[in-house]
């Protein structure tokens, strides 16, 4: 019964489509949410959705690699990274990222619509969906647009923490794109994730330096009044 249910291709594809929609929604949240804690949660949810997508793809295609990737994503992106960032977030007592530059949330949502269209048009130029099944094509589109939206987050939000999350979103997009377009060797995937972890580690640690509101930290920076080397 369960197996037959799991064997039902059409249904699974519908599920994946629904997941796509959810992914986009999370992206929209990340674009507009001000509270960093909730941003983090949304990101975790997004990663979890990716895990589900990978899993259901495994059910459709049945290559273990996809399953492993699902597991990897679950471990790294749903658990470790959010946890770590949370810790840092505690250290620097900021919970909210209020300023936006270039794009207010509403505008950025509209822009992201445009992005989705653009990535559709773009990809349709290269993969017509007959080569690469319809579902997969849509997945690719979603992946690409998610990447672009992540970038949107990076430049439209002020605080480094938010930017980090934007970067992570981009990475999710790339992952999604990768899943649907090509199945890279698994070793590579692992390395990529490691690389991602290190990067997040570094950036968040640095974020302390920039986002922190602790005064004595600032004082310590003031004492070294070197690097007067700015022309503006």
């Amino acid at each position, binding site marked *: 019964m369960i197996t037959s249910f799991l064997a039902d291709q059409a249904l699974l594809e519908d599920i994946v489509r629904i997941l796509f929609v959810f992914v986009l929604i999370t992206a929209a949240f990340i674009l507009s949410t001000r509270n960093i804690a909730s941003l983090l949660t949304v990101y975790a949810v997004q990663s979890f959705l990716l895990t589900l997508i990978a899993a259901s793809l495994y059910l459709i295609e049945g290559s273990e690699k996809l399953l492993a990737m699902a597991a990897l994503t679950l471990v790294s992106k749903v658990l470790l990274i959010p946890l770590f960032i949370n810790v840092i977030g505690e250290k620097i007592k900021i919970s909210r990222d209020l300023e936006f*530059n270039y794009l207010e949330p509403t505008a950025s949502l509209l822009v992201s619509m445009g992005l989705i269209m653009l990535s559709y048009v*773009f990809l349709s130029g290269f993969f017509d969906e007959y080569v690469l099944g319809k579902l997969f094509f849509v997945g690719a589109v979603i992946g690409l647009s998610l990447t*672009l939206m992540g*970038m949107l987050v990076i*430049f*439209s939000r002020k605080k480094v923490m938010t*930017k980090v999350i934007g970067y992570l979103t981009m990475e999710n997009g790339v992952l999604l794109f990768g899943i649907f377009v090509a199945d890279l060797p698994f070793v590579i995937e692992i390395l990529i994730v490691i690389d991602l972890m290190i990067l997040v580690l570094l950036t968040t640690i640095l974020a302390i330096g920039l986002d922190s509101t602790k005064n004595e930290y600032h004082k310590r920076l003031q004492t070294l009044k070197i690097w007067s080397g700015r022309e503006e």
Partner: protein
Amino acid sequence: MSLLEALVYGAIIALIFGTILPLLYRSKNTRKASFSLSFFSSILLLAFAGTVLYTGKEPTFPAFGFLPGLNFTMAADRLSAGFILLIAAVVPGVSIYSIEYVEHAKSEARKDIQTVLTNLFILAMLMVVLAGNMVGFLIFWEIMSLSSLMLVLHDYSSEENKKAGIFYFIMTSLSTAFLFMGFISLFRLTGSAEFGHLDYAASILTLPFLCLFIGFGIKAGLVPFHKWLPYAHPAAPSSVSALMSGVMLKVAIYGFLRFLLSVSAPEIWWGVLIIIGGSLSAILGVIYAFRESDIKKLLAYSSIENVGIIFTGIGLYLIFKLEGLEGLAMLSLVGASFHAFNHALFKSLLFLCAGSIVHATGTRSIEAFGGLIKRMPRTAALFLIGSVSIAGLPPANGFVSELMLFQAYFYSSALQDPLLKVLLIITLSVFALTSALVAALFVKLFGITFLALPRTKCAKEAIEVPQPMLSGEAIPAALCILSGLFSNRILALFGFDFGIPDMLVIGLLLVGVCGFVWLGVRNTGFSKTPRRSKETWGCGILAQHPTMEYSSIGFSEPLIAIFKKIYRPEISSTRTYSDTKECIFKDGTTKIHFPKFFEKHLYLPVAHTVNVISFQVSRMQNGKLGTYVFYVFIAVLTLMTFTRYFA
């Protein structure tokens, strides 16, 4: 390796040693030694160039492979030999002069550096002329520019010297850029870097021609690219100004000739362009020289004028050649080259003398001089020789080359094309005006500087410069007279015979007649007439005062009035009256200011535009991460669209 090559190598090695020694042992004697080395090398070069020009046999040098697929070669044909002769004629005077002159630099280090750079500069110029292919040419061209730049900056403490340095550097790298363009296009065309014969249609060679014309024009100081000269020369030490004006400009002309003579089928409009450019620089150069009262600026402008004359000659050569008048073509080409040689001599002489004057008085402003002939008689005599030959008075050398060009012009009735004739008539009258103005200019310069009463304290207390400097000046002075008197012999020696008047005869006759007059006056019983020394008559003023003398700008006043259109003088005056009705004039001041035309309408606008653009562009770098990522974002979107529709 025959004797010829040995001479060249000897000269090069001597110069290299001259360059390195002062860095190793830093003492007065080393400096002296290195200058004597450059003197020695120029003697060798003199022998070398003389033989090559006389025998016409060209030495062969081994190629030195220094880049894959490209050798560094040296070559010397009669053209390069001619310009080596020029270098060898100027360098001796300069090096002897410098032995003493360098010692007046501010600090020991500067003395050494000046010595080193001067030698390097000479070496670089020599190597440019000797270079066998374009790359070698460019390399030493750059070294030449650099060493001269650092010499211009030798006294970097003053603001205008800094400005001069920056300006000179920009201009010279512009000229190098144009040379790059020209040489690269030639390289692509011929497939080799050698200076070979260019048997191509002129239409193909248009780009290289224009690029090289502009590139060499900038370096030679052709209007409107001349602006760097009046800035760089006052900044440089006088010995270096002598080298720059005397030799470096000629090196640029050498490069241009090197290209032009290798073209088998040029077009007539090239010649027209060259001759127009030449005449323009000639007339504007001397006209601008008139308004200057800084002696070195004035001399710099007169260099511009002389370069203009040389280019006129080159243009004449091209036109006559294309019209099939070989004889006239040769006449004007040799005339131009000979004028280059002569200008090298008398301009270096004049700059050296100017250096002595500046050294003696401590200022460059002519208005401060006066009466120096009493205090510096030797310098005055040498300067007079320089002025006489630059003003083109027979039998000095400056006259001979102008004579050749004039004759070429006068015979131009043989041309067929009426329009060309008209062009030549116009340029001829410009040329005539130029030469007359030069005479006027140097009457002014010599008269205001040396004659009458000293105008300021520094001129009153000036003393004659030490012997080495004088003998350094004496060499080019002697050469000026000799190369004038023996011009026919020299040209005949090198195989040119144009049947121009024999200066030796005319010179002897002139001396003879003057002597005859003198004797006549003495021996006809009039020598007994008493002579008396009495104050100059000043309309009843008892003691004459320097302020009564004509000043430099006052001397120029009629010309400024005549050429108002060119000078556009802005005269501003203030007057005060001792009564309310403003009838009785108490006192007042008048200022005259000449707007710098090319600076205002060519240089500054360009510079300004570049600055504005660079300002706008540098505002992109606003230090905000958001902005930067935004750029990336936009770029990515653009690229995606681009790829979608162009792939």
